[in-house]
């Protein structure tokens, strides 16, 4: 049987791509003897592996060659294809999504030599396909009808068997329970009145907030023990089929928030509550790949003593962050002014926000949107290097998140740092301590300098800033809790302490 070596070369050695990008590469092929091949094909696609049945989806199919392959000759077939909007590479507990290219030499009446290799696909920072989640309907009428029909069938079907040693009690009990579950919310609303539950937005990115608002006007006097909201994300994988079908679930995240406790409401007095919940930082975006799913949902529950509780489960769409101008939100201006002391100097932000297209830094990954509570760094007018040109608004926090989220092993982290090394980023840190620089630095002026260790202002994110010897005096005067502001460039990622080390720009 002819042996055939198949090897893949990608235009990016690290094989990291984003959805929507074009992958360029070459398939290298060498046969140890002549092969009377019909054709050489290449298929690009995604597939799942893990505890669930495998799902696959091909998005490119190319015919690279037709006819005989000569012995010993090295063939190089260029290929290119566009990666679709989703899914993205994901490595979880039950579910893994990988993107692969598969090359195959079709040989008549013989075993086909073939090979496949993986590449990484991350969400595009520009646009994401957003499948609108289903509208927040009250209860599905079809569900109510089905529940009622099955319940009544079980109850009525059980009656004739009551006289056979009470066997009919079992289906009647099941039917009664089903009937109760079908009408539970309606029973609760006899006391609560119509409950209006709103979520905004139903599609949200990690790190951002979802606002729940709940409103009702009780029909009669009612006590509520607790109003609970549970935000939950889980992987769900189905293995086997038929009698062998098993559904496996793995909880990725669960957060329970008590909105209110021990409420006593009089009839006719309207009640309104609002709660904000933050979607955690992660890469488990909502996805449905047949037997493999990642789902997010919020469960809202009103505990009413001695009465059926009101409960509703609302599916949420967690989508990747985008790098659109809207997503790079400005920090609260009061905070900037306080940090930078520019209240009287005018608005330092005027005209500074760069769009992804115009920014020289648009190539940087995952510049996420910010929330008001997040720390933000901005061009500071009292920077130690006022002569330096003001860079566009850069979110250091997002850069750190991206690096921290990258695999610990491999070169992805160092590449991210490398790509941002030329950026002079405005930094504001709350100093915890300072220490002497150690190690051999490429720049002599840093060898005897100091390193400030602290947290980015308003966050728990730790960073270290190397200062040159010339700033030793000012550095030693900074006690714990002091504020340091200035421009710095990312230098390296410290895996030991999981923090970014920056070097001050003099």
């Amino acid at each position, binding site marked *: 049987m002819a042996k055939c070596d198949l090897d893949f070369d990608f235009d990016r050695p690290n094989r990291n791509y984003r959805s929507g990008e074009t992958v360029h590469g070459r398939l290298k092929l060498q046969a140890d003897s002549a092969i009377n091949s019909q054709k050489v094909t290449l298929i690009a696609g995604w*597939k799942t*592996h*893990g*505890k*669930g*049945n*495998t799902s*696959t989806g091909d998005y490119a199919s190319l015919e690279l060659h037709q006819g005989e392959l000569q012995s010993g000759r090295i063939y190089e077939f260029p290929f290119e294809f566009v990666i679709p909007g989703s899914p993205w590479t*994901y*490595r*979880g*507990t039950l579910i*893994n999504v*990988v993107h692969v290219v598969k090359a195959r030499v079709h040989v008549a009446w013989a075993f086909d030599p073939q090979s496949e290799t993986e590449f990484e696909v991350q969400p595009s920072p520009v646009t994401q396909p957003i499948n609108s989640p289903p509208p927040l309907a009250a209860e599905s009428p079809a569900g109510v009808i089905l529940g009622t029909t099955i319940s009544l069938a079980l109850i009525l079907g059980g009656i004739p068997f009551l006289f056979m040693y009470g066997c009919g009690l079992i289906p009647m009990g099941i039917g009664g329970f089903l009937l109760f579950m079908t009408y539970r919310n309606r029973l609760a609303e006899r006391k609560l009145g119509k409950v209006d539950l709103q979520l905004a937005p139903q599609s949200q990115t990690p790190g951002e907030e979802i606002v729940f608002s709940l409103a009702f006007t009780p029909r009669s006097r009612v006590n509520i023990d607790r109003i609970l909201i549970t935000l939950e994300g889980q992987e769900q994988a189905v*293995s*086997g*089929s*038929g*009698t*062998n*079908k*098993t559904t496996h679930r793995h909880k*990725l995240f669960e957060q329970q928030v008590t909105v209110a406790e021990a409420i006593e409401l009089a009839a006719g007095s309207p009640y309104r509550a609002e709660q904000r919940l933050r979607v955690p930082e*992660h*890469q*488990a975006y909502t996805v449905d790949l047949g037997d493999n799913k990642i789902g997010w949902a919020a469960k809202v529950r009103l505990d009413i003593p001695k009465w059926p509780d009101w409960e509703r489960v609302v599916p949420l769409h967690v989508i990747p962050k985008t790098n659109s101008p809207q997503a790079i939100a400005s920090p609260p201006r009061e905070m900037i002014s306080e940090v930078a002391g520019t209240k009287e100097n005018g608005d330092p932000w005027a005209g500074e926000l760069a769009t992804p297209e115009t920014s020289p830094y648009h190539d940087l990954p995952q510049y996420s949107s910010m929330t008001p509570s997040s720390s933000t760094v901005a061009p500071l007018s009292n920077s130690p290097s006022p002569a330096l040109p003001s860079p566009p608004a850069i979110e250091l926090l997002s850069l750190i998140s991206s690096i921290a989220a990258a*695999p*610990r*092993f*491999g070169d992805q982290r160092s590449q991210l740092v490398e790509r941002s090394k030329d950026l002079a980023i405005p930094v504001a840190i709350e100093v915890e301590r300072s220490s002497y620089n150690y190690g051999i630095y490429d720049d002599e002026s840093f060898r005897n300098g100091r390193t400030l260790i602290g947290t980015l202002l308003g966050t728990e994110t730790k960073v270290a800033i190397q200062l040159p010897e010339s700033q030793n005096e000012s550095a030693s005067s900074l006690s714990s809790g002091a504020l340091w502001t200035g421009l710095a460039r990312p230098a390296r990622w410290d895996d030991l302490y999981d923090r970014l080390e920056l070097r001050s720009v003099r």
Partner: protein
Amino acid sequence: MARPSKHHLGNLNLSRNPFGELEAHEIAELAIVNPQPWLTHLQAETALVQFIGDKGRGKTTCLKYLVARLAPLDYVHLPEIGSRRFTIRRPLVIDEAQRLDWFTRRTIFGDRRIRAIATHDDLSRLASKQGRQVLNISVPCRIDHDFLLQVLRKRIERFRISDAPVPEITPNMVNELTAQFGDNLRLIVSHLYDCIQVLDQTGPFQVSLNLTQRPRCHGQQNDS
């Protein structure tokens, strides 16, 4: 949430969890079967192979092996719920053939394009009445200690990245697994998936299951 490695389980020198669900070609590749009697039998035009056995014993694996070996051959799985209608366009094998309805099972085997079936119930008499020469294969043909050890080790080898160490399955581990799960290969494999998922080092590992707790499967070196 995600493992810190380019490969999913790169720290274990594995390109993926070997005990997850497999693709059709991987099932065929990893099957440990003795297909010669089946292949010889199937040379006859009227031949039919019936794989019979309980669930989780490898009937589907045998069928998928045939599909890979005798391509082009269609694989038809009859679902428990929903439509069981299918069209015969070319030679095929039928999984879960016990789900064929009363009328169909009395007529369908007249079509010689059906080459093999997997079933919980014996349908050989019905097939014989329709002019088929049936070879009955009880699955598992053999599922002893050594066979299980071979199956599990072959899976790990399939997804090994390099010559560096990988998680190891020892004879003692197989004893423990069979004590817990009997010869149900599906349950054994599912349990090993969970073990590998939380494993942090190569070599032999703990597989015993405390029924009141989730399995703790941290690596250990003394199990041999």
